[in-house]
């Protein structure tokens, strides 16, 4: 690939990123998840907006992504499963989420809609990211890497084919959505 094509490719990729980001941010705000009380309401189990958005996105995304993958249009982009790192990192993240109410993506949406306390969350995230980098190999150690399963999905775990797994996951997601809608809240 010559240099100008490479540059053109990079500009196209970055522009697409910006466009997708604008759409994502627009949707997050319209979905109410730039609002402190909607996020905190989910963690207090009184407002289920966040769960409704996430589960509907997962359901829609899953069906489309696996369908496109089957037709060889897209490659899956899966992160390795490291149970210890996922669980401990997930819980640490969750505690920070509970304190700030904004998560990294919705924090950007919160700032975009004018919630200035999001800047303090961003400052904490930036400092925390640097501290993580400073910690170097500590978080890569054997303890955190115990049970590393590599890039593994539910399909591999159930030792079955795709279609039944996806059907099962879709059914489970729909059931949870129906239950959440029934028990009310928002």
């Amino acid at each position, binding site marked *: 690939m010559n240099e100008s094509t490479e540059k053109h490719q990079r500009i196209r990729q970055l522009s697409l990123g*910006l466009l*997708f980001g604008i759409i994502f941010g627009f949707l997050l705000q319209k979905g109410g998840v730039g609002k402190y009380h909607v996020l905190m309401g989910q963690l207090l189990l009184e407002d289920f907006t966040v769960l409704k958005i996430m589960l509907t996105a997962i359901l829609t995304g899953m069906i489309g992504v696996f369908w496109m993958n089957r037709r060889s249009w897209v490659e899956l982009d899966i992160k390795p499963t490291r149970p210890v790192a996922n669980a401990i990192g997930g819980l640490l993240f969750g505690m920070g989420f509970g304190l700030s109410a904004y998560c*990294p993506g919705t924090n950007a949406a919160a700032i975009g809609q004018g919630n200035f306390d999001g800047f303090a969350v961003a400052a904490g995230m930036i400092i925390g990211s640097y501290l993580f980098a400073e910690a170097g190999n500590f978080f890569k150690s054997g303890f955190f890497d115990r049970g590393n399963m590599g890039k593994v999905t539910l399909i591999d775990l159930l030792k079955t084919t795709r279609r039944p797994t996806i059907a099962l996951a879709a059914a489970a997601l729909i059931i949870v959505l129906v239950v959440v809608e029934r028990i009310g809240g928002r």
Partner: protein
Amino acid sequence: MNSFHPAAILAQAADVSPLDYPGPAWSPYLVGFLIGVLSWFTLLLSKDTLGASSSYATISGMLGKVFAKKHTLSLAYFQDNPPRISWGFMLFIGIFAGAFLAAATGNELTGRWLPPMWEARFGADSHLLRTGIAIAGGLLMAVGARLAGGCTSGHGISGTMQLSIGSWISAAGFFIGGIFVAMLLYRI
């Protein structure tokens, strides 16, 4: 009233309800569906998935390069993930603009430091407390996200939809930890 004093905090209304404040402008099912569709197109056209947390690390690396270039570039994390403008970083920048557009068109621009629900619980003079808690929250989220390998977007939406086991474990952790701390803040 000194809002840092535990008794003062407890004296505030203990039954602040998130439902007293306006909900989403659009149906969450519509928004979820559209985010799902968006995820098809990011994978199809950009070969990448929605995520946000690593962009804060990119910014930390960029700032690190300004203040301590040699040291920053010597860190393994920044060698593996060079702090430069990428697709994911542009996506992150776009979120601010998109949310601003959405709030402006929906008359939902807030322009305030303290969220109303926070204020109802911790008082109108609790700016320092909110700032401290927000920074602490950000710190924990950054370390947690880097350790787990993603955040509510990267694992919670992009990874779970591909049925990745690690993403489902992480997402469970996000909500277990979050519910625990939220209950401590508002319901104890």
